[in-house]
């Protein structure tokens, strides 16, 4: 994959962020460098991904037979709850923003660091504290409420360690809020000369939208879980019908955040894809302004749809109609993105490198996830498929097929920048294909299971559902392999990989105009931006073919 690099044999930089502050553990734990904090996050979210992944594997093995093969119903309930909590709050939500966003946003806008480096470090520590609470809950009695913590099950009836878990998520919320706050301020005030709003990479736009959701939604779930935790600790009655409280109110408050939270997970992945596609098609992205605006539109409209999780709770019919209508509206900006990405490929110069495969995989899986959302937003269908495996399949297509594919793709794309090394081309291509196939085999059968009526969160099921469950489990084992592979070869490449130049693909963003790995201050001189985003034609510095074909007359259709 280095064959396109036109630069002469490249000497890696002698001083960069990984070594300049020394390798001592203290230099990492007290660092305020956004790049090092990103790596700290990389390690910690990987740990949670691994924990959540182990739970997922056990869930799938358990469901091989109708009666369940592995654990008791009680343990099974804990498994899916802890899988959800670990994956959603401690992996998916921080993954792309806190790892890739943290690493790249300052570099992409030409800044030396985020606006508040100490707060950035603080938010990692808050994440660790929140994470420890949750791990404490997992290891002392576990958690069996479902990641949604519906009351009064969670606040009164559950016998598991609910209190430390809700406190952990409450604490972790502030990590998310501070990250979002830091990004928004940074994007507003730290842009390099010439970096106007409409020259921002789309990755930055999508993180801006993500940060909006983080700062506007997270406080609500924080207070909600705090109230639920107080209710449990002190026998208060906010959401307990026996004392006059209302469990439906909990659901309103919870989904006010937790629906937009889906967009916290997937918007950054859309940002990653919006970077990868133009780079590997070597042409400006089609419909830049529409993609940028659709990110903001998703963030705003995403806040108006939450009660579509409550169509069968006895919600008022009028409210249900309004929320269903608004849910259809939020599908449009996502569709705009998919169409524009596809259109970007047209007449491109497309390479088949691993990041591109991940990005295209993302488009395919996200499209399936998105359109099955249309089924669930549909009131008449939702009364049948609500709370069934259809829902499970749908949001795994969005979160695993979408967010995780984007995250892994982004890691592959920026890995040379982060570590200065290239990984094996053959292995990475293989892993991308394995992931795509394994994923579909795992989750596609679940759509059918759901429509057949298998409810979610079942530790045992009627025998007629077995065939599809076995298929799903088979897929999961392939999927697990697909995740272990990149973990292995990426780690291997850190030491043994080929040295990457500053711009191996080559790509047009500012982050590629500095060394790989970058120096602590990101740029030796503050860059000045005088080009439009993703423009390959006016960038002689990229060293691409001088006589590259120009747009013919009919090209501008």
């Amino acid at each position: 994959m280095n064959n396109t690099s036109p630069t002469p044999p490249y000497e890696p930089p002698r001083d960069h962020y990984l070594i300049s502050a020394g390798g001592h553990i203290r230099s990492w734990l007290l660092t305020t460098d956004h790049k090092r904090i990103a790596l700290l996050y990389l390690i910690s979210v990987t740990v949670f991904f691994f924990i959540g992944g182990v739970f997922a594997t056990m869930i799938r093995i358990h469901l091989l037979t109708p009666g369940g093969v592995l654990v008791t119903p009680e343990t099974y309930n804990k498994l899916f709850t802890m899988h959800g909590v670990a994956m959603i709050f401690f992996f998916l939500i921080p993954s792309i923003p806190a790892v890739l966003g943290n690493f790249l946003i300052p570099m992409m806008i030409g800044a030396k660091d985020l606006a508040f480096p100490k707060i950035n470090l603080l938010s990692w520590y808050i994440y660790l504290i929140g994470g420890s609470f949750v791990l404490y809950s997992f290891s002392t009695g576990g958690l069996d409420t479902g990641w949604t913590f519906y009351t009064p099950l969670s606040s009164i009836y559950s016998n598991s360690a609910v209190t430390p878990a809700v406190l952990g998520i409450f604490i972790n919320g502030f990590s998310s809020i501070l990250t979002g706050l830091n990004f928004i301020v940074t994007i507003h005030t730290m842009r390099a000369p010439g970096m106007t709003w409409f020259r921002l990479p789309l990755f930055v736009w999508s993180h801006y939208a993500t940060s909006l959701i983080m700062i506007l939604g997270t406080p609500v779930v924080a207070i909600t879980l705090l109230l639920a935790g107080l209710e449990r600790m002190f026998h208060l009655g906010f959401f307990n019908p026996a004392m006059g409280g209302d469990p439906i109110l909990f659901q309103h408050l919870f989904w006010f955040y937790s629906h937009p939270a889906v967009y916290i997970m997937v918007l950054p992945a859309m940002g990653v894809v919006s970077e990868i596609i133009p780079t590997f098609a070597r042409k400006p992205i089609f419909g830049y302004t529409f993609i940028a605006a659709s990110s903001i539109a998703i963030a705003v409209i995403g806040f108006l749809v939450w009660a579509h999780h409550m169509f069968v709770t006895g919600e008022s019919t009028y409210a249900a109609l309004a929320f269903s209508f608004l849910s259809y509206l939020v599908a449009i900006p996502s569709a705009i993105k998919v169409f524009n990405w596809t259109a970007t490929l047209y007449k491109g110069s497309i390479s088949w490198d691993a990041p591109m495969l991940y990005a295209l995989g993302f488009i395919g899986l996200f499209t399936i996830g998105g359109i099955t959302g249309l089924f669930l937003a549909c009131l008449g269908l939702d009364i049948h498929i609500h709370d069934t495996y259809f829902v499970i399949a749908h949001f795994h297509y969005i979160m695993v097929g979408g967010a995780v594919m984007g995250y892994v793709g982004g890691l592959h794309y920026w890995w040379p920048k982060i570590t200065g090394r290239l990984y094996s081309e053959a292995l990475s291509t293989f892993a991308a294909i394995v992931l795509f196939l394994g994923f579909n085999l795992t989750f596609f059968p679940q759509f059918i299971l759901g429509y057949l009526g298998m409810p979610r969160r079942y530790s045992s099921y009627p025998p007629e559902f077995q065939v599809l469950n076995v298929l799903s489990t088979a897929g999961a084992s392939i999927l697990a392999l697909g995740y272990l592979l990149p973990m292995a070869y990426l780690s291997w490449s850190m030491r043994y990989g080929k040295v990457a130049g500053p711009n191996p693909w080559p790509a047009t963003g500012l982050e590629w105009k500095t060394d790989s790995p970058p120096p602590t201050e990101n740029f030796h001189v503050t860059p000045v931006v005088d080009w439009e985003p993703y423009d390959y034609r006016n960038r002689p510095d990229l060293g691409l073919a001088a006589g590259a074909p120009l747009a013919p007359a009919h090209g501008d259709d």
Partner: protein
Amino acid sequence: MQSPLPIYPEQASNFAPHVDALLLFITGICLLFGAIITTAIVYCFFKYHRKEAGAIGIVTYEDSRLEVAWIVVPLILAMVMFAWGATIYVDYRNAPRDTLDIYVVGKQWMWKAQQPNGLKEINELHVPVGRDVRLILASEDVIHDFFVPAFRVKMDVVPGHYNTMWFRPTKPGRYHFFCSQYCGTNHAVMGGWVTVMEPTDYAAWLSGVSSGEANPVAVGEKLFAEKFCVTCHLSNGTGRAPSLNGLYGAQVLLADGSTVTADDAYIRESILQPNAKIVARYQPLMPNYQGQLTEEQIFALTAYIKSLESQPVPVTGSGIAPVSEKK
């Protein structure tokens, strides 16, 4: 019963064909869009594969007509999906008149159903084919959800709320029902079977099995005396509290001038929280029965009050609407 890999469950209610048709419609549209996008990606992926190392792509300029087209067309299709789904939902949320009402109570981890004649079932539900059935759902602890895949309907069972659902079975047979809202340890086994029977079989079943079972009207009547309701709610309307004859389903005039329909929720509220709605021209004297009656006793009392409907209402001083409230 079915082929080894069916795509959808049996259609056994009035909603099932509509929901399945809607499913096919949305699936068709989505497949079409999916096919277009997939074809475009695969085509470009091979057709424009980079041949020379240094080649760059040809710039294509964005076209606002194209952008508007792919905003407006999906929007219109989405609105069709919305409207179709909404009609089914509105139908589902508004039960027809004259339904067969069955009370269903969910508790960790079982379902109790009570037929109109008082026959009680556990994790079983018998209904006649072709009749509009309404389930009145209550929970004793956490949130549950009553889900019958073959009928394509479900509804959450929320403590502190009465939810209702309705359907008209169209095909005799035995169908699974599930709890589909996670409710704790044995959530997965909190289910059972709906048996749809021919009306004659249903009637026979009711009378056959129910002998020896207490009739809820009778139980309710007994409670009505035991709990001293009868001392104030005289049937001739001369008591300290309004007569309950003909109350169920009627409009009740309240002290604040508003009216309310005397449905299950109203009767329940009036038993548990009598002073919430005071009937016009009566005093708030009735003690509250909160915590003194089980859910099933309330159902029985309600059944008894309903049965009073058919008795002749003596002419009393009561005004426009059958005025009623227990005091």
